[in-house]
């Protein structure tokens, strides 16, 4: 996706749009807000909301046929729609002050003649008078009201009209029929509302419904003369008044200044778990009491789509709908510091990019795609906080280069096993035994490397592209085999960027060839926790369940599967707190133990103390201990490489021995690991300090030294135990640079 596309993409989201009832309302009344206010007994505020939309609330409430009822989503639950008319009447009765709004504004330049004092003419005259324009109403009869006077409720309507004109009354010239526009030359604009068969001065056939004027741009129309009934005369009045105002200010009615297009809205939201509530009937048999009106209004479900927010801790935390995020990303991409600044760093780098929001969205809007664009653009523009992804990029380099390895027999194989950067790091036997299975069943080579997800999530598409083209080259040189993956993220990356390569999961191959179970294990009722990247891959999901079941494990399903464990998007450095919250929530989705088939899920759940096995632990009869820390993961990767090299080529280079030995107390080691500081960094810092002598020492012979690596400055506190042994006391880092170091 490109910058130009994100706004249109997010437009598909209808969160925050008026509800379906409002689309049906001629007045576009914000029914959600109106009913919410009524439900709290806020009569004054509810009256104001209603009055601002309808101009003459008493008239509107009495005459409106309530088409909103046909679009009330209560009906989808089998309930009666909300009784809007009765609620509106209650609001008018209980409002403490029914007078029109009193605006404190200076008088404005511009005079308008209104022809006709029927409903349309009165409504437009009121709107302009409240804005302090000079308004004169000409009426051929000796009183106002037009056709409304014939209504049996006219005395009630007149009270309403008088109330609204309480503070701003235009000049009324009764018994004055306008027969020619020449009589109105002195006015800057004219609003003709002369009624159904009234005089139109030969212009109504050129009436522009949107601009509300005619071929004579100074002459505006509304009401019966242009075919509007009473309700629509009233409903169109605010638009007419707005257009007239624009004309007075600019000499031209402008379409850009209109209300939004009234389109038919098909957006019904899901009301999962919402209770049915019967229509409130007035005990008196007549009108609602205050309590009854409140109870009826409380039946409103406040229909608005918030599915993505309800299903993602990140979106819920920032409380931004996709449209808002898209607009901020759009602006952010164009930001040019120091004149404008980047506003949404935290959101951008807090997204797991797991696609769950898109999966639950009725329109399929995936916020991750929008925020990924932000990461890419920031990296390209050199304004990405590099420290947020520094660690994972280094891990990627380690996996793809130091621990990288390729073997394809005779450069031609049917399958090429790509276990990914984390499988062997978590447990070398997962890779070694998986490969044994593959070579026993297929002509299969091995490719130890990284799919590039760390670069993708860092927005470093340059590094990602290099890595992908390297994978494409190796695949080509290996006889274009199918890639066998063990990690759903690798699959996602390949499917998106290497469509020419056939990709299959090892779990499907194992299931297909009915891998001999080493043993039926005694493991309790469990949940298969699917990695987010496998959400759309039913073959992989089914294979894992089948493998677990044939190992004798009874399985249950999560209520909402497919959410990310927390590792996606590599948000830990950007938003540790959110990562903790998300991983805790995922671990608590069920009290049952999890079976995972993503090494990262295993790592995250282990950190949370959640009982969890990798499916390969089950299949190979492994009993894993706690998940390894960063240093051990790197050693594990190297171990896999050397063992494979030895097995396949009969030799291996010795694993380089570390020159110094580190001693770290277990709790401290875990604490440092959570900061994403590895043994390698600590060792390098100590080696440098011991060699150069640049270090600090306190009275108890505790030493402190630093190391600048990538975008971080690491600090290590340690004690020398002699013989090249050092006890780590603390390790930490900061992202800012000490200026002299540059």
């Amino acid at each position, binding site marked *: 996706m490109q910058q130009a596309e994100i706004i249109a993409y997010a437009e598909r989201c209808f969160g925050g749009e008026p509800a379906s009832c409002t689309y049906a309302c001629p007045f576009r009344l914000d029914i959600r807000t109106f009913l919410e206010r009524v439900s709290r007994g806020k009569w004054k505020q509810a009256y104001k909301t209603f009055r601002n939309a309808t101009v003459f609330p008493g008239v509107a409430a009495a005459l409106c046929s309530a088409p909103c009822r046909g679009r009330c989503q209560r009906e989808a639950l089998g309930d009666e729609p909300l009784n809007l008319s009765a609620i509106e009447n209650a609001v008018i009765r209980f409002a403490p002050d029914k007078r029109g709004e009193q605006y404190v504004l200076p008088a404005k330049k511009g005079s308008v003649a209104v022809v006709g004092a029927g409903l349309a003419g009165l409504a437009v005259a009121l709107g302009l008078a409240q804005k302090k324009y000079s308004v004169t109403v000409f009426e051929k009869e000796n009183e106002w009201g037009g056709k409304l006077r014939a209504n049996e409720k006219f005395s009630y309507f007149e009270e309403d009209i008088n109330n609204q004109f309480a503070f701003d009354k235009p000049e009324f010239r009764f018994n004055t029929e306008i027969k020619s526009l020449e009589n109105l030359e002195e006015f800057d604009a004219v609003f003709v509302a002369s009624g159904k068969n009234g005089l139109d001065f030969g212009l109504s056939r050129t009436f522009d419904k949107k601009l509300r004027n005619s071929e004579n741009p100074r002459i505006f129309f509304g009401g019966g003369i242009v075919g509007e009934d009473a309700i629509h005369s009233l409903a169109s009045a605010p638009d007419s008044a707005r257009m007239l105002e624009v004309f007075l200010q600019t000499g031209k009615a402008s379409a850009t200044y209109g209300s939004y297009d009234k389109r038919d809205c098909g957006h019904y939201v899901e009301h999962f778990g919402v209770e049915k509530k019967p229509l409130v009937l007035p005990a008196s048999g007549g009108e609602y009491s205050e309590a009854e009106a409140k109870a009826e209004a409380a039946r409103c479900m406040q229909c608005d789509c918030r599915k993505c927010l309800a299903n993602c801790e990140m979106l819920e935390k920032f409380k931004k709908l996709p449209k808002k995020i898209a607009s901020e990303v759009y602006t952010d991409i164009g930001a040019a*510091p120091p004149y404008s600044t980047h506003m949404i760093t935290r959101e951008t780098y807090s997204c797991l990019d797991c696609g769950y929001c898109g999966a639950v969205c009725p329109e399929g809007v995936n916020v991750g795609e929008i925020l990924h664009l932000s990461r890419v653009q920031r990296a390209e523009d050199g304004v990405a906080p590099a420290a947020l992804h520094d660690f994972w990029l280094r891990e990627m380099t380690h996996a793809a280069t130091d621990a990288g390895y390729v073997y394809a027999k005779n450069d031609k194989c049917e399958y090429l096993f790509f276990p990914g950067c984390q499988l062997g790091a978590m447990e070398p036997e997962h890779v070694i035994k998986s490969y044994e299975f593959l070579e026993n069943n297929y002509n299969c080579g091995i490719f130890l490397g990284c799919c590039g997800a760390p670069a993708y999530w860092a927005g470093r598409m340059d590094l990602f592209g290099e890595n992908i083209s390297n994978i494409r080259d190796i695949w080509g040189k290996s006889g274009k085999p199918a890639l066998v993956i063990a990690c759903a993220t690798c699959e996602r990356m390949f499917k998106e960027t290497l469509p020419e390569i056939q990709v299959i999961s090892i779990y499907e191959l194992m299931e297909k060839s009915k891998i001999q179970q080493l043993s039926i294990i005694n493991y309790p009722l469990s949940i298969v926790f699917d990695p987010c990247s496998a959400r759309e891959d039913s073959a992989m999901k089914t294979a894992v369940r089948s493998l677990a079941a044939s190992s004798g494990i009874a399985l249950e399903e999560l209520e909402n599967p497919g959410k990310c464990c927390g590792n996606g998007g590599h948000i830990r450095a950007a938003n540790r707190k959110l990562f903790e919250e998300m991983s805790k929530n995922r671990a608590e989705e069920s009290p049952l133990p999890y079976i995972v088939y993503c090494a990262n899920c295993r790592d995250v759940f282990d950190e949370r103390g959640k009982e969890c096995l990798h499916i390969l632990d089950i299949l190979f009869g492994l009993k894993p201990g706690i998940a390894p820390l960063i240093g051990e993961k790197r050693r594990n990767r190297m171990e896999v490489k050397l063992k494979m090299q030895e097995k396949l080529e009969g030799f291996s280079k010795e694993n380089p021995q570390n020159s110094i030995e580190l001693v770290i107390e277990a709790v401290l080691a875990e604490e440092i690991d959570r900061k994403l500081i590895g043994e390698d960094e600590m060792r390098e810092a100590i080696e440098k300090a011991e060699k150069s*002598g640049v270090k*600090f*020492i*306190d009275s108890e012979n505790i030493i402190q030294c630093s190391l600048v690596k990538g975008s971080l400055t690491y600090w290590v506190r340690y004690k020398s135990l002699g013989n090249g042994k050092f006890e780590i006391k*603390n390790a930490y880092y900061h*992202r*800012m*640079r000490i200026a002299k170091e540059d």
Partner: protein
Amino acid sequence: MDWKCAKCDIVLKLSKVQFTYLGNTFSHEVPVCPKCGEVFIPPELAEGRMAEVEEQLEDK
């Protein structure tokens, strides 16, 4: 504060030091070796005020 610069064998003294992050430059008083100028950052500072400022600058 009893930290010493190991190389110069001198007790550190508070001194103004310049820091840079994401194109911003600012200064703060931190322990420094009065002789060689080597800067010492204690954990409370790195993981406290410095981390706060880093986050603010990232969000700016």
